[in-house]
């Protein structure tokens, strides 16, 4: 059944697998090619085709000149917004989740089990159940339509995942190690710095990639709690589609889509192994 020679059945397997892989790549290929075609060319043929003349200018227009809603500054400000939300929220939620995961798995304290149980419920509670309360909280904190507000939301909501990831990883560290360190007089922080953190890089990479990808790609909170120039790039893409509905600019739009998708695609390209580990770790809760 698992011979490595090229029998007809194996040729068939390769054929089928390559065909499906090609189908998965088509959307990416279409966007890349379209981002290099002129609007007129696309209008004459279809979205699917090889560029006759390479319109590299699409990227410059999409990045810095294109009009989204009433502002004509391209996608750049929104990319910046997304970065200013994703990066701090990823770092803070990962650090806090790491300490919390360490506390509930190794340090142990009264009530650790029930509070961890409640925190992980956050993985299941739909965003729609939190939209209204967040509206009120942001209003009372004077953070409506600010990036700080989005950072706050993503940090607190991210804790459910980061704590879960770290806790499940730390639980494999032998308790004896911690007990011995405590007998030697090491406290909460010392044990964290000296024992737990040095063992953590694999899970921290998984957590950072997971958080960054999710926050960068998030749309609902972005579109609900920010408007205009404060929106993250996912919301800006929707606004862009709406503002060109009359005169489509598919070449420039494709370039904008590529730019918006690039950060998480790069993360996936370089950290794919950790990305997949996060996916499966999140699945087997």
């Amino acid at each position, binding site marked *: 059944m698992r011979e490595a020679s090229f029998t007809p059945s194996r040729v068939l397997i390769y054929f089928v697998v390559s065909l499906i892989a090609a189908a998965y790549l088509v959307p990416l290929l279409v966007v890349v090619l379209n981002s290099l075609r002129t609007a007129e060319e696309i209008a004459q*043929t279809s*979205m*699917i085709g090889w560029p006759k003349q390479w319109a590299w200018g699409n990227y410059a227009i999409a990045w810095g000149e294109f009009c989204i809603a009433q502002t004509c500054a391209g996608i750049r400000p929104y990319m910046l917004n997304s970065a200013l939300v994703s990066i701090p929220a990823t770092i803070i939620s990962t650090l806090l989740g790491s300490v919390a995961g360490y506390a509930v798995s190794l340090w142990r304290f009264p009530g650790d089990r029930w509070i961890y149980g409640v925190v992980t419920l956050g993985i299941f509670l739909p965003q*729609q159940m939190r939209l209204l309360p967040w509206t009120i909280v942001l209003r009372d904190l004077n953070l409506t339509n600010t990036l700080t507000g989005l950072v706050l939301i993503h940090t607190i909501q991210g*804790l*459910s995942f980061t704590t879960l990831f770290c806790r499940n990883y730390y639980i494999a560290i032998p308790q004896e190690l911690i007990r011995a360190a405590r007998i030697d007089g090491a406290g909460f922080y010392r044990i964290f710095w000296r024992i737990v953190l040095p063992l953590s890089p694999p899970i921290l990479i998984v957590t950072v990639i997971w958080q960054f990808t999710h926050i960068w790609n998030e*749309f609902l909170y972005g579109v609900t709690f920010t408007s205009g120039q404060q929106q993250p790039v996912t919301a800006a893409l929707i606004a862009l589609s709406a503002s060109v509905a009359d005169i489509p600019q598919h070449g420039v739009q494709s370039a904008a889509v590529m730019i918006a998708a690039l950060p998480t*695609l790069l993360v996936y390209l370089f950290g794919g192994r950790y990305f997949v580990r996060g996916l499966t770790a999140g699945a087997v809760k």
Partner: protein
Amino acid sequence: MPAAARNGQRRLALDQLRRLPEFLIIWVPLLLSAGHLIAFALWTIWVSFTPSTLVPVSGWVGLRNYTAMMATRNWQIAFDNLLLFGCGFVLLSVLTGLGLAILLDQRIRGENVLRSIFLYPLAVSFVVTGTVWSWLLNPGIGIQKLVNGLGWTSFRFDWLIDREMAIWTIVIAAVWQSSGFAMALFLAGLRSVDADLIKAAQIDGAGPVRMYRRVILPALWPITVTVVVIQLQFAITTFDLVRALTGGGPGIATQLPALVVYDFMFQRGLLARGAAAAVLMLLILLAVLLPYAAWRYLQRRQSAHA
């Protein structure tokens, strides 16, 4: 003696004061996370029983928001769509994922590259996926236009603007985006099937087809349940993909519960109705998750006894 006791007490107090930062760093994030979950969920449930419209107000209207919500065309269409979308998407994505996993498990060359190709859509946002598929499926510029241009002028692929079929465009995009996830879990499952079982079946002279039907697939069913539950959870909360792909249209033909919630809360300013729709969404989710949690609990207890 009293002096020593007082001294001891002071040392204890001092010790606790010194441990305060550690106490805070443990409890503050955990309490914020747990507290916001409970408080936010309860608050939304409370709003769903009030007569709130533009702003939350107190008062009690019983189940009126729920009955009114369920009587709207929006909700009925959204619920029917959820059934269609949920079943179609989960079935197709599980079958595709399983098929891909079995193909990749044949010790083929370039497995890593192929796996990366099937998984890359997961790294992209639903907004990007929806936007790109809205172009491909748009009869005026997408696949239909291409095929028409190639000479087959009577070719029609206009589900995107067809009220009956539009929901299936969301199925297509969703399967493209997340069947790789099913594949990854199935592949992990295939790799962990007991090698002795396979060897024993081989000695018994089982061919590949029999092997899969009798030995390998039965061993995969716990993973299948997990995959189905996770995909259902995704289906129930789908929002971004629809916003980017069809915007809920044509008309309201591709409404889903999450879009109804948003529509009532933030576009019509009917907070209580929107909250009721959100709670209904949660109930649908619980109808999937609670049996799953019970099943997982029983399984764990069984394996603990075994």
